[in-house]
């Protein structure tokens, strides 16, 4: 479990983190979501003990992260830094061997740990390849394997799926989801689908401040605008006139569709008014071809939260 309280970090005059609080439970996957320069990487560097914060605290399993607990707590963490930095001079095996050794894995257990991490990350056929010859996706896998080598209970993954092809992205996400059942995971991303696909909870950061928090679903629910999109055969003016009579209608937008005589209308209401809309249209003898309740996408939420 990780508790982050009032985290603050300045780079010279720039405040990269400003009073950021959040918590992650064991068995939970938390996504740090935010635009470029929001402070996600900075927060991760502080949680892993690479950077010191200027104010605030990080607790791991109830223990304060500080100079004297640093090495012990770091051993509980597996960290994949942004862009998976690696030594170009080493090969895959040497990398994993190094990480296993510095994490205190005994000599006789090292080979097993290396093979296991390589297998889970799909690296077996590249076990003796030089890092400088690996493709970006394989580098990312090696970075992940390094983070997993000592079977840590906490994983901090900074943009774990950047640079991977769509198949690999799906694979790695599945893998993270399966890990997330037992481990505590924080990952950062600016990809909305990623949040929806794997995160149990999201923390949205913008310009160093926390601007939203909740489950991917509840973040959308914080807003009370409903949008119902309907496709109708009929006259736009008449349609609008009838729709305006419905309760809770805020705004109506319509545009012609590709088909002749067919229009698409978006009805914005303060509550879900789908059945009223259908009834009103039937009463006015307007032909309803399609009705879609448009949920707010993560993109919308993201934009709304980060463009203030």
């Amino acid at each position, binding site marked *: 479990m990780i508790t982050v309280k009032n985290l603050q970090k300045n780079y010279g005059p720039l405040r990269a983190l400003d009073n950021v609080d959040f918590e992650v439970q064991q068995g939970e996957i938390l996504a740090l979501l935010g635009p470029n320069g929001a402070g996600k990487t900075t927060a991760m560097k502080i949680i892993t003990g690479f950077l010191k914060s200027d104010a605030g605290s990080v607790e791991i399993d109830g223990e304060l992260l500080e100079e004297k607990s640093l090495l012990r707590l770091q051993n509980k963490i597996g960290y994949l*830094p942004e862009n998976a930095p690696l030594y170009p*001079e*080493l090969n895959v095996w*040497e990398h994993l061997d190094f990480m296993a050794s510095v994490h205190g894995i005994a000599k006789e257990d090292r080979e097993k740990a290396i093979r296991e991490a390589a297998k889970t990350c799909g690296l077996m056929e590249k076990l003796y390849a030089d890092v400088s010859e690996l493709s970006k996706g394989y580098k990312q896998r090696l970075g992940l394997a390094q983070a997993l080598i000592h079977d840590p209970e906490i994983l901090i993954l900074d943009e774990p799926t950047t640079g991977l092809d769509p198949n690999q992205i799906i694979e790695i996400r599945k893998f993270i989801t399966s890990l997330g059942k037992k481990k505590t995971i924080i990952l950062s991303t600016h990809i909305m689908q990623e949040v929806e696909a794997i995160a149990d909870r999201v923390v949205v950061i913008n310009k160093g401040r926390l601007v939203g928090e909740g489950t991917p679903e509840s973040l959308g629910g914080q807003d009370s605008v409903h949008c119902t999109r309907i496709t109708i055969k009929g006259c736009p003016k008449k349609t609008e006139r009838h729709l305006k009579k419905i309760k809770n209608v805020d705004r109506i937008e319509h545009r012609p569709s590709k088909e002749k005589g067919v229009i698409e209308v978006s009805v914005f209401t303060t509550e879900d008014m789908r059945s009223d809309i259908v009834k009103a249209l039937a009463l006015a003898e307007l032909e309803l071809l399609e009705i879609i309740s448009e949920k707010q996408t993560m993109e919308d939420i993201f934009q709304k939260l980060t463009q203030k």
Partner: protein
Amino acid sequence: MIQINKDKFQALVRKELRLYFNSPIAYIFLVVFLLLSSWLFFRTFFLIGQTEMRGFFGILPWIFLFLIPSLTMRLWSEEYRQGTVETLLTSSVSVEEAVLGKAAGSFIFLALALLLTFPVAISLSFVGNLDWGVVLTAYFGALLLGMAYISLGLFISSLTRNQIVAFIVSVLVLFAFLILGDGIVTAFLPNWLGSLCKTLSLGTHYNSILRGVIDTRDFIFYLSFIVLFLLLNVQTLKTRR
């Protein structure tokens, strides 16, 4: 109290040596060093006809002046530029262990380079009367001097992401420490300052060892120099956090 975990330290040293030997730098270094040194050996031998290694050891500080910064320049700069320092310093090794691991890796490499010049010394001893006492003392002095260079070069590498900058600054600072005790420098200084310069000079102490005896003062000077810059290195890494 600094605690060093033996296994972690070994892993760090092994990694540093792998970084050397898995890249061409190590071999270029060794070839250049051996070519230069054997040439200097045999030049004194054939020109003066003397079986001694003064020429070689005398010029060693100048060879080191360029070769050692070329080894140490990338040690921290590259870790920072590539970002590997993040994995390194979050993998539950202490900053002290990380610094010592790098210093030890480079020291082993340097010792190996000096060891490879040994066959030349041995062959000299066959043709003439080589004073092994003087030669071995000189080797010991060269190790101390080289380690002092490494310690300073490593420290300077921790100040910048740019290895070329690290190289140039290291050469300049080492040059200053080397000639600090020279007559040319001290002649223009007041007496007390001149003798201070001599005490702080890497060159003065080395020349004193080359005479064939190891004075504890020389030994303590090098030891303090090495420890000082290793500690400064630890400090810069900690403040860069």
